[in-house]
């Protein structure tokens, strides 16, 4: 079974067209596209490895050290975790603009409940995760049952959650030292494991764990296959007996929960609880997902690709900073990569196996 069986009605005519124009190199061209279709993370992995090698050569040991390479992992951990949630949603041909806001409000709930309500840190963490789950489920219900476009639902939810976050927190930061004294559990994902010069935070380990777990679930369980089916063609999925609405709600709900975890990891990374953090996480996560080769039209791509996509952004950012380049060059190159990635996706879509 491939990751992305194209829908029947668009497959037939396009296959004819391609066969007409490219009949002479059909086999090689198709073999490459077939490989890319079954292994959608191949291109981002290739770009990632190439980028690491090039920046390694240009920067020498400063870049090609366990310190710098694991630093990149730390820098992409939060966006990477949010991007896992984003991947699930985009695989169903949706989009979630509220991911970053949900992560931040979860972290604020964890902090405020601990300090204002005086409940134990462990319980506050559960409340924060429940908050993420709640907002994610609300998104899912609106998308699946009220049949609103995901872009609109999450655009609204983004504003609502962010405003609620500022109203509730009063923009007040909870300091790292206070958290360390009262509820160190909040900073759990900031703890580190050092192996030689390499530094791994628990947040990085959470990211890697989530990617492995979601890769397994998406490829090996019925629910995972349903997510792809719903994204590829909801009507066909419905006719094949997939509970489309339930699947959609569960995807947004799990996405919200993962954002809750991202909020927890965010406290670990910042040390403090900051209501102003994570405001660009929605755009950054979509960037990682797209560069990672997941199709914005749903049904094709893998979570491993998303991890590579996030790492590519991290490698470019640090690599260019070490070279002393203006930070705008990073944005320029990332922008070019986004367009490149979508071009590749469209090319694959036009040609089927």
């Amino acid at each position, binding site marked *: 079974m491939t990751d992305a069986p194209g829908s029947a009605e668009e497959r037939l005519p396009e296959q004819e067209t391609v066969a007409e124009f490219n009949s002479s190199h059909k086999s090689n061209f198709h073999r490459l596209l077939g490989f890319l279709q079954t292994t959608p993370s191949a291109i981002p992995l290739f770009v990632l490895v190439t980028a690491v090698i090039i920046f390694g050569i240009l920067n020498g040991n*400063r*870049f090609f050290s366990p*310190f*710098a390479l694991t*630093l990149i992992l*730390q*820098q992409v951990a939060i966006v990477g975790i949010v991007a896992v949630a984003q991947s699930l949603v985009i695989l169903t041909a949706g989009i979630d603009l509220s991911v970053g806001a949900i992560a931040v409000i979860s972290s604020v709930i964890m902090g405020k409940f601990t300090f204002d309500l005086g409940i134990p840190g462990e319980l506050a963490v559960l409340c924060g995760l429940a908050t993420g789950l709640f907002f994610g489920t609300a998104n899912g219900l609106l998308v699946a049952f009220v049949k609103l476009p995901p872009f609109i639902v999450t655009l609204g939810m983004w504003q609502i959650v962010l405003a609620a976050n*500022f109203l509730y927190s*009063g*923009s*007040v*930061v909870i*300091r*790292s*030292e206070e958290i360390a004294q009262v509820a160190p559990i909040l900073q759990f994902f*900031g703890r*580190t494991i050092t192996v030689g010069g390499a*530094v791994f*935070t628990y947040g990085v380990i959470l990211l890697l764990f989530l990617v492995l777990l979601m890769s397994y679930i998406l490829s090996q369980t019925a629910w995972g296959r349903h997510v792809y089916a719903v994204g590829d063609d909801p009507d066909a999925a419905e006719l094949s007996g997939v509970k489309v609405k339930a699947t959609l709600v569960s995807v947004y709900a799990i996405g919200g929960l993962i954002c809750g975890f991202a909020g927890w990891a965010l406290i670990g*990374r*910042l*040390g*403090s609880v*900051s*209501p*102003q*953090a*994570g*405001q660009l996480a929605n755009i950054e996560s979509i960037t990682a997902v797209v560069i990672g080769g997941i199709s914005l039209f749903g049904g094709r791509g893998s979570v491993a690709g998303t991890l590579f996509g996030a790492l590519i952004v991290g490698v470019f950012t*640090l690599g260019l*900073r*070490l070279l*002393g380049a*203006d*930070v*705008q060059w990073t944005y320029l190159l990332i922008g070019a990569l986004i367009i490149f990635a979508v071009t590749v996706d469209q090319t694959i879509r036009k040609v089927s196996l």
Partner: protein
Amino acid sequence: MKYLTTLATAALMTAGMSVAASAADTSVCLITKDATNPFFVKMKEGAQAKADELGVELRSFAGKYDGDHETQVSAIETCIAAGAGGILLVATDSKAITGQVKKARDAGLVVIALDTPLDPMDAADMTFATDNFLAGELIGKWAAKTVDDPANAKIGLININVTQPSVGVLRNQGFLTGFGIDIGDKSKWGDETDSRIVGQEIGNGNAEGGRKGMENLLAINPDINVVYTINEPTAAGAYEALKAFGKQDDAVIVSVDGGCPGVANVEAGVIGATAQQYPLDMAGKGVEAIVKAVETGEMPAATEGKDFFDTGVGLVTDKPVEGLEQLTVEEGKNLCWG
């Protein structure tokens, strides 16, 4: 509800009667960059308190986020239409807003730039601000007297953002001057050639950016021992990065702002010294000046020797050095905001 309204009306009337009659229908607009940054939240509180005291009406506006120029433009239009006596403006885009400011002044409103000078500065009637260059200079001098060997220091700087707004440039260049580094062109950062500067990073004024900026600086040179940060949330983020690599005792962080969490971080040893500014005062004095200008026609004057009204700055540290006027953490706490 009715009771509350009656009470409020009564309070307004009492307040109105205690000052000159014209003040009762004077209103003052406050336009800030956003409504979430504690600095602006405090500014609004200071303006409101002074407005209540003088019996004038305060209308507050804010961009939806820092960088939201359009909302500030429409806020000025609203103030002109509402016939306000004057505007206190914390400009997001200190150049682009000047056209709108001119319209307001032509319509007879007094415009005072708060915190951020307009470009050109005389586009506003007066600027009420912290002397940001002096603020930077104070922490620069303190840092130079605190590190063991300033001639061989390794300095990392975490600035605000790529657009190099005037406040960020003044603090940065003030810091370098205070430390004893030749700053070249004082209208921008990044053109210095002193080898003690390891790198100039961008932190967007928040903890997240502070941490990432510090990580990047450590990747460039792990031996950094002096860190300048644009504000205290950035400093807190930078400290987390140092801590993650076990280097928190090897580097001294200096900052600007003097918010209460920042002063608490000075006490906790996260920040070595911070230059404290006084937003409540800034806004309160601004309201006073506008009311005075409307009532008497007398425009606010600049502080002697400067081209703006200096609202003061204090150096807060718990490791005082010789030859500088400094506030203790206790004193800083009494004066802190947010």
